[in-house]
């Protein structure tokens, strides 16, 4: 379960990567599959509560720079024009804003990128009319993908830049969405690959070192990025590059980034703010 290749192999044995992932987690935690599924369901409940809190128009962070914008975006969300992306972006922003305002969140894979996966999942649930259990199933797939990235590269902005945080989160969300749309494991992994390819090199450049600007807006963009990648994969486009190789490349790019672009609040957007 430590490489994308291994995930696909395990998926063949268990019927899907998500089933293999739930079985792996149960074994790892020496718990029943019912128990780890219950834990994951608990995470989904926190995500939904966090969304509700994040859509509060009066929300403000300690610095006062972030909060309340998700409510604005959600009110204006035009699903006819923008489809599911309208909601997913607003939801991702809402949860990221709630995080910035000391709300309760589920790191996925990090606190700074916590809006993307739930934003896509909950928007998909509403537009497709899916039960919670379908989302929980997709979350195991997303977690398995994120774990490979954490093992083979990094999910820390200080080590790998924003590509490692919001990039990884969007890759996880893309895989989850393909799964919810009844795509194959290969398509889900292809969607991950498209995200990793398209977010390669994104730097971590928080203004004043705070998880606010540009972080919360990158969550909205990450949701859109995930859905774009998922659409390509679902339409039958195959990712032209090997996904394990893309993960290794992302790590190398992160290492090559100067410290000013790795969560120090110096370069990039940080150079324009504060």
């Amino acid at each position, binding site marked *: 379960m430590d490489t994308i290749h291994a995930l696909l192999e395990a998926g063949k044995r268990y019927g899907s990567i998500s089933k293999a*992932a739930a079985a*792996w*987690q149960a074994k*790892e*935690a020496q*718990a029943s599959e019912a128990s*780890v599924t*219950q*834990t*994951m*369901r*608990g*995470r989904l*409940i*926190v995500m939904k509560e966090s969304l509700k809190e994040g859509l509060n128009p009066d929300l403000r*962070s*300690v*610095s006062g720079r972030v909060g309340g914008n998700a409510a604005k975006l959600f009110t204006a969300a035009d699903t006819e024009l923008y489809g599911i992306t309208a909601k997913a972006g607003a939801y991702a922003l809402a949860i990221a804003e*709630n*995080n*910035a*305002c*000391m*709300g*309760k*969140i*589920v*790191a*996925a*894979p*990090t*606190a*700074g990128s*916590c809006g993307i*996966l739930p934003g896509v999942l909950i928007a998909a649930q509403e537009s497709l009319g899916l039960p919670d259990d379908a989302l929980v199933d997709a*979350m*195991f797939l*997303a*977690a*398995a993908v*994120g*774990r490979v990235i*954490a*093992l083979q590269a990094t*999910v*820390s902005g*200080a*080590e790998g830049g924003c590509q490692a945080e919001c990039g990884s989160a969007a890759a*996880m969300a893309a895989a989850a969405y393909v799964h919810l749309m009844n795509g194959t494991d290969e398509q889900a992994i292809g969607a991950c690959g498209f995200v990793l390819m398209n977010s390669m090199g994104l730097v971590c450049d928080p203004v*004043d*070192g*705070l*998880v*606010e600007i540009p972080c919360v807006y990158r969550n909205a963009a990450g949701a859109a990025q995930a859905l774009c990648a998922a659409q390509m994969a679902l339409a039958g486009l195959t990712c032209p590059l090997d996904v394990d190789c893309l993960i290794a490349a992302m790590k190398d790019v992160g290492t090559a980034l100067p410290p000013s672009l790795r969560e120090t*609040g110096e370069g990039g957007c940080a150079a324009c703010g504060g």
Partner: protein
Amino acid sequence: MPDLFDIVGPVMIGPSSSHTAGAARIGKAARMLLSGAPKKASVGLCGSFQKTYQGHGTDKALIGGMLNMDIDDPRLRDSRELAGEAGFQVDFYSATVRNAHPNTVVIDLSDDAGRSVNLRAASVGGGEIRIQEIDGHETKITGHANTLVIHYLDKYGMIANITHEIAAARINIAAMLVSRTVLGGGAMVALEIDGEADAGLTEKLSALENVYSVAYLKFTNDRQEG
């Protein structure tokens, strides 16, 4: 090695795993080292902690932890007020520690009963913490396993006596770090154990000759909680 609930998780109060969740974990560890409710704390923030603590709620997280809150406790937000209500006085200052990790904190914590503890700890990323020094003794506590921290007189046979009691409680020691300041002076051992220690064991350890104090750090397992 991360498991799936480290990736979709932990459940925590934002905004930052290192500056908020890690800080709360350090605060709680400080309280456990004191073995009781603190009344006074002096907290020195270094590097990035010092620069960004207000925006990240690092101060609130540290105080919340010292008030026994976990990383997902919404009361972390109001911990400064809650500290005031509990008569817990906390002062922050800007500290400098040479060659320290950017997210380093030094804490002096004391209670009404005359107990006190001094520690240096770092939040090293993703909510992971390292307690690096306790009362002048170098150490390395990760919070991955429950840990006994024992202060004693540096004398032959002390480690044997301590580990004998732990063995008698049928508890396995996973890691052990012994440190002393001067020969024949005060010494400290940090023992990471498998499973949990009960009150009976800490009482027996405290009753050993030349043992000054026993603190039990029971770390919350964030992974398996709903």
